[in-house]
């Protein structure tokens, strides 16, 4: 086996393959970045919604809770399938990349909203009372006092979850999205040894995830309660 691999190495590491892998990595990264951005924004909205006490927002609040509890407890693969079968009839020309990205957005919103909610709740109520006594309205209190103080509780787990999302995108290969895992499969189909093909793909994933993991660990250490 290793003799075979040794033969293939120079053929494998040619320009074409590297560009191919890079493009695939780009798609993996794109899905993750878009998914996480949407996840942070929507997750933030749901988290704020869940903390509000207004009666008018109760139905929305219940929807938010149901959403988060549902999408946190099903496998990403199942989310992919559901989104696929729902979107296909609705949006005929939808690309697979689009479907996969929507799925990541749904997943990340659910997880990140919990992280953000925990962060918002970690701010001592006295801070909110201080703001209230000074006549801050709810929005001012949220953005000027609560949110700036919740970063330290939000960032470390958020970074860890983003690493998880990078790895989840590999399941999109099942749909046919030409991201890193699919690229690996294609290379193996072209005749390269699986060790080389998937090994290269693993290295790419590692290159994407590891810096983020280190950042998460660093943040955890730095932002731990004094």
């Amino acid at each position, binding site marked *: *086996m290793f003799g*075979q691999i040794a033969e293939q190495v120079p053929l494998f590491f040619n320009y074409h393959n590297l560009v191919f892998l890079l493009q695939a990595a780009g798609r993996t990264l794109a899905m993750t970045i878009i998914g996480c951005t949407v996840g942070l924004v929507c997750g933030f909205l749901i988290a704020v919604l869940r903390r509000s006490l207004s009666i008018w927002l109760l139905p929305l609040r219940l929807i938010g809770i149901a959403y988060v*509890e*549902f999408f946190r*407890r*099903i*496998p*990403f*693969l*199942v989310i992919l*399938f*559901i989104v696929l*079968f*729902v979107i296909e*009839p*609705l949006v005929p020309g939808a690309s697979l990349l689009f479907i996969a990205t929507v799925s990541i957005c749904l997943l990340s919103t659910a997880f990140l909203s919990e992280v953000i909610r925990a962060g918002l709740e970690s701010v001592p109520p006295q801070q909110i009372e201080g703001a209230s006594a000074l006549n801050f309205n709810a929005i001012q209190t949220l953005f000027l006092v609560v949110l700036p103080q919740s970063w330290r509780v939000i960032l470390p787990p958020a970074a860890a979850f983003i*690493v998880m999302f*990078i*790895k*989840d*995108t*590999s*399941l999109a*290969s*099942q749909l046919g999205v030409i991201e*890193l*895992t699919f690229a*690996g*499969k294609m290379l*193996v189909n072209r005749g390269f*040894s*699986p*060790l080389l093909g*998937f*090994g290269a*793909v*693993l290295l790419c*994933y*590692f290159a994407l*995830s*590891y810096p983020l*993991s280190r950042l998460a660990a660093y943040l955890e250490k730095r932002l731990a309660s004094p």
Partner: protein
Amino acid sequence: MNYTFQFTEVWRELPYLLGGAAVTLQIAFITFWCGAFIGIFGALAKVYGGPISKRVTSYYVTFFTNTPALVQVFLLYYALPDAGVLLSSMAAVLVGLTLNAGAYLTEILRAGVVSVRVSEMEAATALGMSRLQLLRYVMLPHIAKTIYAPLSNFFVWLVLGSSLAALFGVEELTGRAINVSTASLRSIETFTIVAMIYVVLTVLASGSLALVGRLAFRVKAKVF
């Protein structure tokens, strides 16, 4: 949109699907306990081991936690035959997920081991406890309390993670869902019901784990 939801066909297949849920739980159990076995050694190596074992364990953990489980299993399934080892789909999935789980569990168990407070150990030693007594009365209860919640969460995560076995033809819950949906063409209904089954599974799992935790270890855990 002219699509009428028909759940009856899928409803008929419920026993079949629930059988898949049983397989899912089996996969989760096996990978959890085998992974825990690896994890204990890994944690001990990282905390008490020499420089080489520390480094090797570190590499193992870093590698498996920063790369997707799917690709890890692909590697096992497609690359090993070249070396003469033919693994069945189930075997490849189990081995792959176990190695993956072992890495995460190493970290969880390690956090537990280092969480023992030196001050408690000193107090116990000063009281004259032997090393074995220290282990039993000071270290283990504290470690158990610290790791119980992360372990429960991790088990639930494994239940969900087992779904990738479906991509290798294993007939666990997601695998059977794919079968049912292709046979009945009722994809949305099938996967909605299967999603519900997963939710029920995870709620039951975290609920019962929380209960056990409260009774056996006096750990207060949140289900929701």
